[in-house]
């Protein structure tokens, strides 16, 4: 099960990479293995917002029986058929890849002739899960009004308004939606706040026609001053914490939560070389440790960047067409223009007025009693979760500076161990063992401790 999910995730990554054929050309090569299976029980949401206009795209990687799938989401306004769109999962994967925390490699050159090369790497993304309930028939008369009823793509969608939570709960249950115990009160709260309910099930016939393994993401466009994400229903019967990734796209700048503090994820940390092969584990444990320092939960900003460029790039910035598909309505149609925008290393031409913020939220009912409320700020300073590997020069060094260089490198490596232990909670002993076990990235041996080699040893190195 674990394996199949992993394979599926890898397949998704492969798709998003093939969309970006130039990946790797500018920033070197990928050093960290993409592991999208890091955060179980997580959902991905793209949130496009300007003024009161919102376009929300919700992805799920539901792999079970499609008859079992259903979702119930409180929405601020009535949604008509034209406001709903079936999106493409690869778009969210691309957005996820573009905003993912990244590993960067630097190589020290021979200290006698110093030049630095920069290498970049992509890292990880996330897997999605949706609030999953169930579905089948319909009935009325419980003071529930079906305001809209339509089918889009493989989904049958209804927009409900209700007067009483009990009536709504019975209606949902009679229509085959499994509502967890304890949800009635929350439904009642949403009803009083004049929220409507967006309920969706999979239409098997249409699903068969559409084909494909996955359920595609649903995008909804609406206009409301409420800039929020309802998370309360999803916390009712969830075990432990859940992860939510929000990719907010705005004109002006960063998006932050107003009713919870938005933390910056630790960034620009230098780490031991072996992390290259364990970047996924590193990031998972670092996130966990950061969240634990806030009581096991929190809103963390992992990326905030102008969509025109990236440095280093984990994936290409999204093209105007892709952004429009995600609902960035203020962008002009560039279909007449050639190809996708090449990745750049600087904000040379600010063609797109799009700023992306990636928020990684870990929450449970106790620590996040209230729904997430957001605000767009005017802050457009760039931020990225970036981790650095500095390879020491390990070749032969024949100059007086070598001794000094080796001392500095070993000191640096000690600091890296401390940093890694502090960030992840891994023990220093474990880290030292890992460094020792690795082929590269170990401590350098000071020149004076090295066995002396005379010139004749080099002529016949194979001899004992």
């Amino acid at each position, binding site marked *: 099960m674990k394996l199949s999910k992993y394979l599926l995730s890898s397949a998704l990554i492969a798709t998003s990479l093939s969309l970006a054929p130039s990946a790797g050309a500018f920033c070197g090569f990928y050093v960290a293995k993409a592991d999208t299976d890091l955060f179980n029980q997580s959902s991905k949401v793209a949130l496009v917002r300007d003024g009161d206009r919102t376009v929300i795209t919700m992805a799920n990687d539901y792999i079970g029986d499609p008859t079992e799938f259903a979702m119930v989401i409180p929405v601020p306004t009535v949604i008509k058929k034209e406001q709903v769109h079936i999106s493409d999962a690869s778009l969210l994967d691309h957005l996820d890849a573009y905003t993912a925390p990244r590993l960067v490699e630097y190589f020290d050159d021979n200290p006698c002739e110093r030049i630095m090369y920069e290498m970049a790497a992509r890292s990880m993304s996330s897997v999605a899960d949706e609030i999953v309930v169930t579905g089948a028939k319909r009935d009325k008369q419980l003071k529930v009004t079906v305001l809209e009823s339509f089918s889009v793509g493989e989904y049958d969608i209804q927009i409900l308004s209700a007067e009483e939570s009990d009536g709504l709960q019975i209606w949902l249950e009679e229509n085959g939606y499994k509502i967890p115990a304890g949800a009635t*009160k929350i439904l009642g709260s949403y009803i*009083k706040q004049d929220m409507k309910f967006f309920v969706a099930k999979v239409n098997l016939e249409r699903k068969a026609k559409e084909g494909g393994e996955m359920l595609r993401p649903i995008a909804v466009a609406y206009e409301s001053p409420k800039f929020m994400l309802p998370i309360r229903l999803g916390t009712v019967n969830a075990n432990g914490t859940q992860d939510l990734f929000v990719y907010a796209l705005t004109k002006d700048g960063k998006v932050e939560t107003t*009713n919870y*503090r938005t933390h910056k994820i630790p960034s620009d940390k230098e780490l031991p070389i072996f992390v290259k092969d364990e970047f996924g584990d590193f990031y998972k444990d670092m996130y966990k440790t950061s969240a634990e320092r806030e009581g096991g939960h929190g809103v963390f900003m992992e990326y905030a960047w102008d969509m025109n460029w990236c440095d280093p790039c984990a994936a290409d910035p999204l093209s105007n067409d892709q952004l429009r598909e995600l609902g960035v309505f203020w962008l002009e149609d560039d279909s007449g223009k050639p190809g996708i925008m090449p990745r750049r290393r600087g904000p040379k031409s600010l063609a797109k007025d799009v700023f992306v913020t990636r928020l990684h939220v870990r929450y449970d009912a106790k620590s996040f009693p209230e729904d997430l*409320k957001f*605000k767009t*700020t*005017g802050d*457009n300073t760039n931020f990225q979760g970036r981790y650095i590997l500095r390879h020491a020069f390990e070749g032969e060094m024949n100059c007086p500076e070598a001794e000094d260089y080796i001392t500095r490198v070993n000191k640096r490596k000690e600091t890296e161990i401390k940093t890694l232990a502090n960030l992840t909670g891994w023990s220093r002993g474990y880290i030292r063992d890992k460094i020792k076990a690795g082929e590269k990235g170990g401590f350098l041996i000071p020149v004076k401790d090295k066995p002396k080699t005379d010139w004749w040893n080099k002529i016949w190195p194979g001899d004992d």
Partner: protein
Amino acid sequence: MEGLAAFRHDPRHYQIIVLSSLVLIGVFYYAFQLPWWHVVGVMIGAQATQFIGDRAVGRRYDPRSPLISALSLTILLRTGSIWLSIAAAILAIGSKCLIRVKGKHIFNPANFGLVIISLLFTGAWISPGQWGAAPIFAIALAGMGGIVTGKAKRWDVSLAFLGFYAALVFGRAIWLGDPFAIPVHQLQSGALLIFTFFMISDPKTTPDARMARIIYAALVALIGFTIQFGFYNSAGIIMALILTAPIVPLFDKFIQGQRYSWPKFSLPKSKGVSHETVQIPAE
């Protein structure tokens, strides 16, 4: 020793210490989006405006009140440009010098600068979620500490506001059938507590009479609550203060009370100077 007594006597010194500590905690511990040069810009903007204002009316320049306004601005306002920060400071102190009724300024200076700049420019905003849950108790403690030690002269307006606001969010939760964890969470807002203990309590811009202040606090709470939950603006209470400030002169007209002025023997070196008493009190 007399200097120390004078230092302790003026409630503004307590405020300056608490607000400076909050700025330092915000910058160094919570990594606020607040570059140090913005802090300096706000300080210089506020002091310069105060200096010019004081010179214009022939009053002795006193750096303490503009320092408090500048600190409040740096705690609550975030901008993408230092010019906006400076503009907010100039607006804040400028409003104090220019918008006056019967010798009393209308708007809380920091509140005025904050709201006007954030409404006019997308590059300036109020960040209510920037404080985590951890410093909440520290801020509450500092606020309550001020009340207990008598440093906060208008503690009645702080407590009345907090009481009314709490009643409203708890009332809303009861009406919605929400668990009390939600209103408790809503009250654990750093911005709310800073507003309560260090902004609405400004003795110069609250009504003179206690009864008027209690009614005024209820009004600010009600309007702030409505903006926050009815119009979905997270800076509701800060908006409410600027909206209600113009009616303070009406309160003073119909419910009369003792006008507040800062203690006059403020700076130790100026003790015993007779002309000090005839000066226009510092703002």
